């Protein structure tokens, strides 16, 4: 370790890496927000992303193009989301239990298919996987500091931030979004004004599947070009914490996602400075607990001064079947 000064750790490239690391978390967060607003706290984000990561690699190898990989991931995640939706909405299964079981199925399925299709154990890494290329943004990349920070990222990094804006627009600026949010806020009122609540819940889950597909694809075709067992490593759970922190609002949740991304990037950086890797990789998870703690403290202060805002979704839904 020796004496490392802070300025050699907090470099521009660290912040650029933070944007990269935050990308999958932001995608999953936006997906989770969409379903949360219909009253379903989607705990399967982790599993959806893992499925997305695997099928992105499969699609990339089969079609020879990262966009083919993305397509495979989107289809697989939409199917997974549809299974979730049918089990919960048609067969009336408990959404928390179904979501947690989806994560277990996702790990089993991807591990099984990894060995059954590529004949490898644990990790699949070959030149056959074609990943996305970084893009330089024409004018911006010439600006000294901003250029280094904002230019030269993978296309999905930019798209993740665009997706925040799209989710914001759809949820808050369209009649569709108003109807969708009304389902989560008061399902009886929504029904009384003629909203098809079940269809809205389908949309919520399918959109969360779609966005998790992007997040998963980013992990296996941009951030890395490989697939490894359980490669999402809890990013879906970090997304749930981000949603909790942002109280289901897109921009504050995105900020939490950026904080977790920064913790992730910092962990990688500190490893290069010789800190034991086992300790520094705890950082994003510790950060998550700390962020939840801070947001609870802030919320309590807030509550004391203001009338308690209603917070509809309770993620501690009973686990009793």
């Amino acid at each position, binding site marked *: 370790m020796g004496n490392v000064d802070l300025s050699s750790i907090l470099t521009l490239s660290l912040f650029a890496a933070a944007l990269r690391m935050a990308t999958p978390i932001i995608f999953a967060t936006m997906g989770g927000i969409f379903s949360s607003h219909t009253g379903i706290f989607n705990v399967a984000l982790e599993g959806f992303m893992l499925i997305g990561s695997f099928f992105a690699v499969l699609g990339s190898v089969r079609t020879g193009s990262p966009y083919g990989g993305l397509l495979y991931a989107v289809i697989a995640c939409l199917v997974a989301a549809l299974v979730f939706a049918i089990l919960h909405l048609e067969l009336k299964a408990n959404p928390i239990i179904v979501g*947690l079981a989806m994560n277990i199925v996702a790990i089993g399925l991807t591990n099984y298919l990894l060995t059954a299709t590529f004949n490898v154990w644990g990790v699949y890494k070959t030149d056959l996987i074609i990943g996305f290329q970084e893009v330089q943004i024409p004018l911006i990349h010439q600006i000294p500091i901003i250029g280094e920070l904002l230019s030269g990222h993978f296309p999905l990094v930019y798209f993740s931030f665009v997706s925040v804006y799209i989710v914001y627009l759809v949820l808050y600026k369209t009649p569709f979004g108003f109807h969708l949010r009304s389902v989560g806020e008061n399902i009886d009122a929504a029904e009384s004004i003629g909203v098809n609540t079940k269809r809205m819940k389908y949309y919520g889950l399918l959109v969360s599947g779609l966005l998790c597909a992007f997040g998963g694809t980013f992990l296996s075709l941009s951030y890395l070009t490989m697939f490894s067992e359980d490669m999402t490593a809890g990013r879906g759970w970090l997304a749930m914490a981000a949603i909790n922190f942002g109280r289901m609002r897109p921009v504050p949740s995105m900020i939490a996602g950026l904080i977790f991304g920064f913790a992730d990037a910092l962990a990688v950086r500190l490893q290069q400075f010789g800190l034991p890797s086992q300790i520094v990789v705890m950082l994003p998870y510790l950060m998550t607990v700390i962020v939840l*703690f801070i947001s609870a403290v802030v919320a309590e202060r807030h509550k004391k001064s203001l009338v308690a805002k209603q917070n509809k979704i309770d993620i501690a839904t009973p686990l009793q079947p």
Partner: protein
Amino acid sequence: MIKNFFDKAKNSHTWKENLVNLTTQLLNYLIILIIALFIGAVVMFLSGKDPIAAYAALWQGAFGNGYRFADTLDRSVIMILAGIAGSIAFRTNITNLGLEGQLYIGAFAAAWAGFTFTNLPAIVHIPLCMIAGIIGGALWTLPVLYLKMRWKIPELVPTLMLNYIAIRLTDYLIAFPFRDPAAPMAGSPLIAATAKLPKLIKGSTINIGFIIAIVLIFVTYWFLFKTKIGYELRMVGLNQDFAAAAGLPVKRSIFLAMTLSGGVIGLGGALMIQGFFGRFLGGFSSGYGWDGFMIAIIAQNHPFAVFPTALFYGALANGALTMQSVTGVPQAVVAMVKGTLVLFVTVKVFVENIRKGLRKWAM
């Protein structure tokens, strides 16, 4: 008052109705099991494997002969403890998804007690390691309890985060402070011979841990259904506001359920180290905490139902190895089948239809 009401409701069932209910449950599980096995078979078939051969090898591996059956029983020990740990928490309506982390910390604590003390008699050393495991598992729930009870943060995400932290923390402990260079993989030093659990049968790994697990099932049943504290736990789980209004100690019940849950899975970790591994190995758990979650859900948080479910999960775990080595089908397919089972467990459609049919037929 409340209790009398529930007891009356229970007694009003006729034996016929009870029989219908029991048969309904059994048929429901049979249908779910068939669905899960079928989905597993479809995935195997689509990826060019022979599902029938795979399931046959799985059966052979789990129940093929006496020793294999004994090994299956040994593997179900951790499943029983994990299932009970999950049941206690879920019954109190605590979503303890941190079983995996509590298992790691408990197991490490037991291993530490096992290799640190070297000249104790077995009669002292064995329970000492178990107690270390229980304390380790229970302590690991405290941060979550603080966040839940003081700051009202739902336990779901913090328990999960502590899983990742626990796995990495124990990885660090065996990589640096307690590293044993002689270990085949990253692992702690071997525990003393006096800390190891005596075996029950020669030629199998089964040990007195199995007896402990069986005893624990009855103790948990007695605790949850025959003691005042257990009753409070269940009432808090059914309706927290109602329990608070009735004057039950809600905070104490939550604290107790969570620490007991962590303690039981910590004991499971101790039994694995003392009975099977003989040292703490990095990443030794192949998702036993998650198995515990699934078993508790399938068993509807009832200790007596945990036993057959855990036995089934133990058989799957034991048989999967044989299946993989004999037929080349990756054992991950078993995780998929287990998850699929849980996907369907809370589906009410089958139960409703079976009950309707049985009622018509029986009455």
